[in-house]
């Protein structure tokens, strides 16, 4: 499948809406995200009834995740930005710029989900990075500017490494540019193929995309960027952009697998996955900022996804499912953390964001629900996806040791989050800080629907989209890596 117009169309529509949001008067700006939401819903319907087809089941699966999470982020963003703009005194131009860039960010995430050519995928993830750098800087506070700068430096260095690595690896295989995609089944073999350069290119690409995905030890930008960004942006970054970057690497490794031993490619994913769990385990228990806590949790979960992709087999299915379960649960958590920041003017437990269950029970209830899901408690969906990843690790003898280490680290992370959460949820602050705070229904509504999705839809998703899931599982099981 080539880069057909049906793959360009959704990206083009969202980019046009982004442009209109920035140039039209403010009264019209507010309608652009709403039209984008309607468009994303329509695209999901078109996929469901077979009127729109993507390259393969994995693309379709990731597009569904991107569309659903983006709809919730756009829905939450409208009331969130209205309150944030009042609080931080944004100008009309600031609001229009934020809305436009948010739509560009979503368009680039859609591109990462639906495009098939590796060069265009690189451009997609680059656009996602650069647009989100500007979004992270939106609050214009010193912390936000520093975070965006760190984000830019680390991930752009990685992006350039990914470009060079990808170009070297693919050109050395002898594939013509129009075959630089993951849907071509042709294996190009010629006498001059250098396995060493393919491996060098593959590892350069892995390091490059790992910086985009926030995998340790290239994660240094992530806690700052996630904690400083507006809440809907944090949700999109954590749930979609990190997973999109790691999926591109997986696709690239899939294409390179016939030329180099697949185990040497998979080992890179496993090592980075384990390192990410180590970093999360080391830092999660010491966080006093709610958004920063979920940022470290994102490092943990992208590490788990990387482990699943590296283990292969049933763990691969778990990794794909985990992209969905993590994205929905983490969006719920980041958006409610954003509500906390708006209502309490901080998300730090040491600066007044305390006794949330007593003062803002709906928001705190959803935070508790999301926490139970994200730490992997049954019967929430992340439990099942983590289970598949860990069981998959035990199926191969050489993966058992990393799998056992991962389980130990997950227990440490679980304990860390379980220790920290009470300091926000029910540990009381000073007596004069215990009055109730009114929770605007405009902020609650999107999160309540998302909470229902996390409880019911999260666990039921594979069954609700059974035909797609069936195809996906079949495709993954015959995968070479």
């Amino acid at each position, binding site marked *: 499948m080539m880069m057909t117009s049906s793959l360009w169309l959704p990206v083009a529509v969202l980019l046009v809406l982004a442009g209109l949001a920035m140039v039209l008067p403010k009264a019209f700006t507010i309608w652009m995200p709403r039209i984008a939401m309607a468009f994303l819903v329509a695209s999901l319907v078109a996929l469901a009834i077979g009127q729109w087809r993507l390259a393969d089941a994995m693309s379709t699966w990731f597009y569904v995740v991107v569309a659903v999470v983006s709809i919730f982020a756009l829905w939450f963003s409208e009331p969130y930005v209205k309150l944030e703009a009042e609080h931080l005194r944004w100008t009309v131009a600031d609001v229009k710029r934020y809305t436009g860039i948010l739509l560009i960010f979503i368009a680039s995430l859609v591109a990462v989900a639906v495009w098939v050519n590796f060069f265009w995928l690189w451009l997609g993830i680059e656009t996602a990075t650069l647009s989100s750098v500007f979004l992270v800087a939106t609050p214009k506070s010193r912390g936000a500017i520093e975070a965006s*700068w760190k984000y830019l430096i680390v991930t752009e260095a990685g992006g*350039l490494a990914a470009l060079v690595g990808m170009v070297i690896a693919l050109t050395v295989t002898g594939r013509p540019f129009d075959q630089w995609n993951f849907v071509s089944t042709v294996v190009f073999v010629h006498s001059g193929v250098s396995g060493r350069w393919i491996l060098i290119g593959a590892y350069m690409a892995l390091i490059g995309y790992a910086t985009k995905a926030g995998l340790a030890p290239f994660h240094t930008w992530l806690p700052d960027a996630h904690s400083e960004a507006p809440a809907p942006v944090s949700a999109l970054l954590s749930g979609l952009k990190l997973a999109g970057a790691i999926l591109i690497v997986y696709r690239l490794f899939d294409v390179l697998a016939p030329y180099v031993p697949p185990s040497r490619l998979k080992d890179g994913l496993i090592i980075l996955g384990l390192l990410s769990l180590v970093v999360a385990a080391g830092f999660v228990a010491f966080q006093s900022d709610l958004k920063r806590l979920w940022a470290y949790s994102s490092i943990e979960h992208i590490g788990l996804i990387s482990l699943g992709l590296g283990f292969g087999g049933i763990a691969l299915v778990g990794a794909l499912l985990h992209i969905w379960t993590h994205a929905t649960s983490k969006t719920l958590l980041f958006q409610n953390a954003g509500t906390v920041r708006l209502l309490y003017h901080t998300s730090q437990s040491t600066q007044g964001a305390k006794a949330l269950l007593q003062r803002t029970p709906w928001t705190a209830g959803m935070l508790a629900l999301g926490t139970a899901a994200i730490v992997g408690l049954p019967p929430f969906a992340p439990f099942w996806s983590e289970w598949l990843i860990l069981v998959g690790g035990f199926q191969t003898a050489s993966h058992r040791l990393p799998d056992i280490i991962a389980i130990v680290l997950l227990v440490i992370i679980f304990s860390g989050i379980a220790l920290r959460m009470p300091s926000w949820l029910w540990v009381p602050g000073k007596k004069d800080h215990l009055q109730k705070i009114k929770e605007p229904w405009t902020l609650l509504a999107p999160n309540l629907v998302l909470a229902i999705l996390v409880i019911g839809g999260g666990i039921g998703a594979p069954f609700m989209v059974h035909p797609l899931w069936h195809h996906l599982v079949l495709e993954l099981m015959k995968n070479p890596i």
Partner: protein
Amino acid sequence: MTEQILWRLAGSLIWVMAVAILLVKTHQSARLLYRLQALGEAGLLAVIALDHEPLLWIDVIMVLLIKEIAIPKILGPQKGMIARDYGAKGTVGMTFLLFVAAAFTLGGLALGQVPGLLHPLVAGVLLGAWFVSFMHLSSRYETWSMSWALLSLDTISGALAVAVAGPIPEFAGVGIDVGALVVAVLLALLTRTIASTLHTTDVRDVEELIG
């Protein structure tokens, strides 16, 4: 033969400027060195365009317009701030950086000799420059210096991807370079935004490394 010499000259110019930008980044010199490095990239692309890929003339023109004029102009109006925050002061620091740059360059040259690339020597020089720019990124903390490191890395990556990796279609070469140019412009714009918001080029409020 002439083509090979021109390739090596262009590649060497890119490498020399990568090392020079690592060492000296006063307001005027940084922009000048960046322009010279971009000239190396344009030269490399021009050799390929002359030889067999005429579409790459588009890249040559864009590189000249954007990297010679637009980006230095975007990063131009911070003279006072740069003079306050940045200064190359110590010879010991410079010597150390030169030794490290030499080590990274040797590493790049050795890597270029691994069989499989079309132009091992130029690839090795550019890989050396690439490593030097990576080292530059991790050895300094003020935005002015890191901006130039990243812009230098962007130039080297564009040149490496288009010119050295292997035969790719002209339109793909143009696409890769356009991608790298867009990234460069956005980097420059963000650097200016950050400087004008923070009124400093030092994001960590620490005295930068001397040298």
